[in-house]
C-alpha cells in the first residue's frame, strides 16, 4: 500500500486518499470499523514519524535545550499553556481571524471569479493582473497595511483577505472556463435564464475548482495570519511564538508551531474534505 507520507504539501484537493479495500489484505468481519482505523493510522503515521525523528535528532546529537527541546518537554509546555489559559485564548483569536478572512474571501472571491470567467474579455484582461498579485505575497503588503490601518485587526484582516482571495478568484475563474458549453446550451434551450445558469451550471460546475481555491486560500491565509500577528503584536499564535523568542523559550515556540500546523490539518480534514466528499466525489466529477 502506498501511504501518502510526505505528499501532504501538494495542492489541496488532490491529496491522495487511501483506498478502502487493499488487494491481498482481506479484512474479515467488521470491515467499516477496521477500514476507518486504517485510514486514521495512515493519517497519523507520518506525524508520529516526525515526532520520532525530532526526538531522535535531539538525543542523537545531544542538543541542549537552548537549541532544541524534546517532544515530551514541548508537550508539557503546551499543557501548561492550556492550563494557564493562554493557548486557548490565543488559538481562539487566531481561529476567529482566519474564519472571518476565509468567509470574506469566499463571499467576495467566488462572485468575482464567476464574473471574470463568464465575461468574454474579463478573464483575458484580468489574468496578468491576477498573476501579478499572486506574485506579490500578502506579507509584502503588511508594511503598507500597517501604514494605512495601524497595528490593528484591520491590518491582519486585509492581509488575510488579500492572500486568500487571489487563489479563490483564480480557481473559480478557471473552474467556470472548464465547464463544457453544452451544459449552458442545454439549460438555455429549456428556457433557463442567467440566474438559472449561475445556480444550476456555473456554481456546481466550478465547485471542484472553488474548493481547491479555498483550500489553497485558507492555507496561504493561515500563513499570512501568523505573519500579521507577529508584526502587529496582537494576541494570537503568531505573537505567542514570536514573543517566546525573547527569553529563548524554544519549548513555547515549538508548541506554538505544532499547534499552528495541527489546527490547519484539522480544519482541512473537518471542513473542506467533507464538503468535497458530499459534492464533487458524489457527482463523480473527481475520482474518490
Amino acid at each position, binding site marked *: 500500500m502506498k501511504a501518502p507520507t510526505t505528499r501532504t504539501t501538494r495542492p489541496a484537493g488532490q491529496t491522495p486518499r487511501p483506498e478502502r479495500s487493499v488487494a491481498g489484505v482481506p479484512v474479515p468481519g467488521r470491515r467499516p470499523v477496521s477500514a476507518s482505523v486504517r485510514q486514521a493510522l495512515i493519517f497519523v503515521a507520518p506525524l508520529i514519524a516526525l515526532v520520532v525523528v525530532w526526538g531522535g535528532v535531539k538525543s542523537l546529537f545531544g542538543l541542549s535545550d537552548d537549541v532544541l527541546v524534546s517532544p515530551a518537554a514541548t508537550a508539557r509546555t503546551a499543557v501548561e499553556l492550556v492550563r494557564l489559559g493562554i493557548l486557548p485564548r490565543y488559538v481562539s483569536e487566531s481561529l476567529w481571524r482566519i474564519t472571518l478572512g476565509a468567509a470574506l474571501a469566499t463571499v467576495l472571491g467566488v462572485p468575482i471569479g464567476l464574473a471574470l470567467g463568464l465575461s468574454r474579455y474579463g478573464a483575458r484582461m484580468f489574468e496578468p493582473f491576477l498573476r501579478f498579485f499572486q506574485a506579490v505575497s500578502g506579507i509584502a503588503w503588511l508594511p503598507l497595511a500597517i501604514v494605512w490601518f495601524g497595528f490593528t485587526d484591520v491590518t491582519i484582516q486585509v492581509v488575510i483577505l488579500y492572500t486568500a482571495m487571489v487563489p479563490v478568484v483564480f480557481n473559480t475563474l478557471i473552474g467556470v472556463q472548464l465547464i463544457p458549453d453544452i451544459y449552458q*446550451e442545454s*439549460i438555455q*434551450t*429549456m428556457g*433557463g435564464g442567467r440566474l438559472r445558469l449561475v445556480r*444550476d451550471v456555473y456554481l*456546481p460546475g466550478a465547485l471542484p475548482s472553488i474548493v481547491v481555491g479555498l483550500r489553497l486560500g485558507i492555507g496561504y491565509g493561515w500563513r499570512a495570519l501568523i505573519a500579521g500577528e507577529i508584526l502587529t503584536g496582537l494576541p494570537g499564535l503568531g505573537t505567542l511564538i514570536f514573543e517566546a523568542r525573547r527569553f529563548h523559550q524554544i519549548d513555547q515556540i515549538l508548541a506554538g508551531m505544532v499547534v499552528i500546523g495541527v489546527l490547519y490539518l484539522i480544519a482541512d480534514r473537518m471542513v473542506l474534505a467533507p464538503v468535497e466528499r458530499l459534492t464533487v466525489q458524489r457527482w463523480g*466529477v473527481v475520482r474518490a
Partner: protein
Amino acid sequence: MRVPERAAARQAPDGDERPRIVVERLSHSYVNPQTGESVHALDDVSLSIEEHECVTVVGPSGCGKSTLLKAIAGLVRPTAGTITSGGREVRGPARDRGVVFQELAILPWRTVRRNIGHGLEIQKVPRREREERIAYFVDLMGLRGFEDHYPHELSGGMKQRVAVARTWAADPDVILMDEPFAAVDAQTRLTLQEELLRISLTESKTMLFITHNVEEAVFLGDRVVVLSRRPGRIKEIVPVPVPRDQRDLGALSDSGNRSAGVAAVIDSVLKLVRAEV
C-alpha cells in the same frame, strides 16, 4: 398511466395550417477558431416542418447538419436567411424548441430525477405535477430504480435516455435531436431507436432528427432530407411512404423482414448519400 396532457392546450387552432418550423434561404459561414479558416457550412437551405411531423436529416460528416439544428435551436445565429417557429422569428434559444444533444449534456451534479425534472423546475411547474411527469418518463424510458442515481453511475445508453426524457418532460413544441445515439453501442442504439419511435407516437411532437445513419433516418422520419457535401445544400427530400405507427425494428435489421416500402426508401437514400461521400 395517465399522460399529463399539456401540449394539447397549445395546439394551433383548426384551419391554421402554417408549418411549425419554417427555414428560409438559410446560409451560414463561420471562422474556425483553431485553424482561422472560413467555413461555409450551409448554403441556401429552405425547409418546412409541419406540426407533429418528424423530419430526419442525413448527409456526409461536416455537411452542416448540426449547424442547421443549432440555428433552429437558436444557439447559432445564421449569416443569412430566416427561421420561424410557430410564426415567430427565432432570435435565440427558448423553451418551445427542446434539444437532445449528441454529447452528454445532462448535468453530472443532478440525479436522474432532478435532471429529468429540470425543464419543469425552470418552468416553475408545481412539485406534484413535476413528480408525476418525471415518474411517467422514468417508466417510459425504462429508468425505474435509477431515479436517485447520478449520471456517472449510469451506462452511456442510460445517460442518453435521461437526456431524451429530460427534453421530452419539459414539453417543448418542437424537439431537435442532434445524432443523439451516435455515442452508444449498436445494441443499445436499436433499443433507443425503438423507444424513440414509441415515445414519438404516444407524445406527438414536431421533430427534427439529425443522423448520419440512413437506416435510422428512414426508420424514424416521415420525410428524409438529404444534404450535400459542404457547403450543405438540400439535395433531395425523400418521403417515407410507411406511416410511423406501422414500422417496427425489422426496418432496421438486415434480415429480410423489412417492409418493401421502407427498404426501397433506404436504398434510394443510401444512393443519394453515397454520391456525396
